[in-house]
């Protein structure tokens, strides 16, 4: 009985979190609401990144490009073409997925490890160059502002309104990713990480699995980009550079490589931390680095491994070293 009720308990816990979070805007002020919104976006960015480097095991750093592509797609579609912002979310996801498709073509040509890392980094920097120089479309270094909008009569300039939209998008994408990982496709993703040659010998089209993982990672991250565009109200090339990349890399590692729960925990912790560290001007970066280093020394598998140890309720099927 205990064994069979565990998945049900886990499912209830999964849905209980967003239901409880519905009350959050009642407890926040403008500033904490803005930070909470940023956490939801960071959670999706971290999730998409963790999928590629943790589950698929590819050292690819193109996710910042997917994030930027999503944000610019959303801004261009709503500012230039006048589409309602809410509609641009899935479209930005598709643009991100297209970015994933492009990035995977490097992996599919047999470029791996450090070479894949440098090629995907270059892709990210190239996209930033495009944002700066495609001025008529992207606004160049000035960026693009999103038009003011309402959704069902609620102003999308209100962080509390944004929160509900962000929460819905985040929950749907996290649930979908969890479904993916717990299926034969998720198993195939792990199999490719473990031994690509043997995976093909089982009739699994490894190239298609790699492409699918990058594309889904791009979709999740592209949707997050659309949320980000609305979050800050304005997209700039600077938002999608190395700092963004390193910060989401740290979130993946602190949370736990390949863990969905870890992606959320890492994003929440490392979004909150700099806000608290503001109290120590000049020492912020030092404390940030020390805390990240300390977590990884004590918990090499990230925060999620701590929870997993505490209760089987938090175990995830394909979160392994």
């Amino acid at each position, binding site marked *: 009985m205990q064994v069979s009720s565990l998945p049900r308990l886990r499912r209830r816990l999964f849905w209980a979190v967003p239901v409880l979070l519905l009350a959050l805007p009642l407890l926040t002020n403008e500033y904490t609401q803005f930070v909470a919104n940023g956490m939801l976006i960071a959670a999706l960015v971290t999730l998409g990144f963790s999928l590629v480097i943790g589950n698929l095991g590819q050292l690819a750093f193109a996710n910042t490009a997917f994030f930027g592509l999503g944000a610019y797609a959303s801004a261009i579609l709503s500012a230039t073409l006048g589409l309602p912002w809410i509609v641009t979310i899935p479209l930005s996801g598709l643009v991100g997925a297209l970015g994933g498709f492009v990035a995977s073509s490097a992996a599919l040509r047999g470029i791996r490890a450090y070479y894949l890392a440098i090629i995907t980094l270059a892709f990210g920097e190239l996209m930033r160059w495009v944002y700066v120089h495609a001025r008529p479309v992207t606004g160049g270094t000035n960026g693009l502002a999103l038009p003011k909008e309402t959704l069902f009569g609620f102003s999308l300039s209100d962080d509390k309104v944004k929160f509900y939209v962000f929460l819905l998008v985040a929950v749907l994408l996290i649930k979908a990713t969890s479904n993916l990982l717990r299926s*034969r496709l998720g198993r195939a993703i792990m*199999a490719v990480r473990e031994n690509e*040659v*043997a995976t*093909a*010998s089982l009739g*699994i089209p490894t190239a298609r699995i790699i492409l699918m993982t990058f594309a889904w990672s791009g979709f999740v991250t592209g949707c997050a980009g659309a949320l980000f565009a609305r979050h800050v109200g304005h997209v700039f090339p600077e938002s999608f550079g190395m700092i963004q990349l390193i910060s989401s890399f740290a979130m993946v590692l602190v949370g736990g490589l390949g863990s969905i729960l870890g992606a959320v925990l890492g994003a929440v912790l490392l979004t909150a931390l700099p806000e608290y560290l503001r109290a120590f001007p000049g020492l912020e970066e030092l404390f940030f680095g020390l805390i990240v280093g300390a977590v990884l020394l004590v918990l090499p598998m990230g925060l999620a491994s701590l929870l997993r140890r505490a209760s089987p309720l938090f175990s995830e099927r394909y979160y*392994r070293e």
Partner: protein
Amino acid sequence: MSDLLQVSSLGVRFSGLTALDDVSFTLREGEVRAVIGPNGAGKTTLFNAISGYVTPTSGAVLLQGRDLAGQSPHAIAEHGVRRTFQNGGLFPALTVLENVMTGLHAQTPGSFLDIVLGRRHAIEAEQAARAQAHDLLKLMSMDHMADHRAGDLSGGQQRIVEIVRTVASDPPVLLLDEPAVGLSPVARDQMLEIIRRLAGEKGVGILLIEHAVELVMSVADRILVMAAGKRIADGTVPEIREDRAVLEAYLGYA
């Protein structure tokens, strides 16, 4: 017994080097066929050429009349020619059960969208695959290890799990690359028993590379002997024992 696999004039040339030269043989249903030969004879190249990891430069590989030569490894595996690897092809971080379930991947229904949206039939397909994997492990008395990390198993157990995984989808042809190397005598006997059962009870045509001559003699119905990329003899165990070319080239007797 009909011919399952027909390999004809298979050749592999790597820039100037002929690794496999005009090799032909057949494999029948339920037959265990050994491939022996000294190091560098081209045995593993033969396996790689049949399973698509190396593209043959000439010849054909017919599975029940359909030519598979030159297709990709996953396509060949999907058609029903499956292989194991000399240096272990298990996924160490996955459990034993999950390893076996990867062998069922291609025949488990559910599209990407069905899976992502959590549609009922995709979830049911996953549960059915899980149950089937448990059944397969039970057949080999390995079900008690189902939830162990595959990397934590002993070498012999890993080999057995790899075979269970490889035959999970009921392939008509199985290629085993040195299935008994490094095994204890007990594990080796267990391996022989599994090979006999797969061929005898399920009718799988098995092609195996093996160095241990006494093992080959005890399990194989026919033996293909190779040296320097060529077939030098092909026949039943007694025939090979008497073959002068084999004695000279491989067994080292004058």
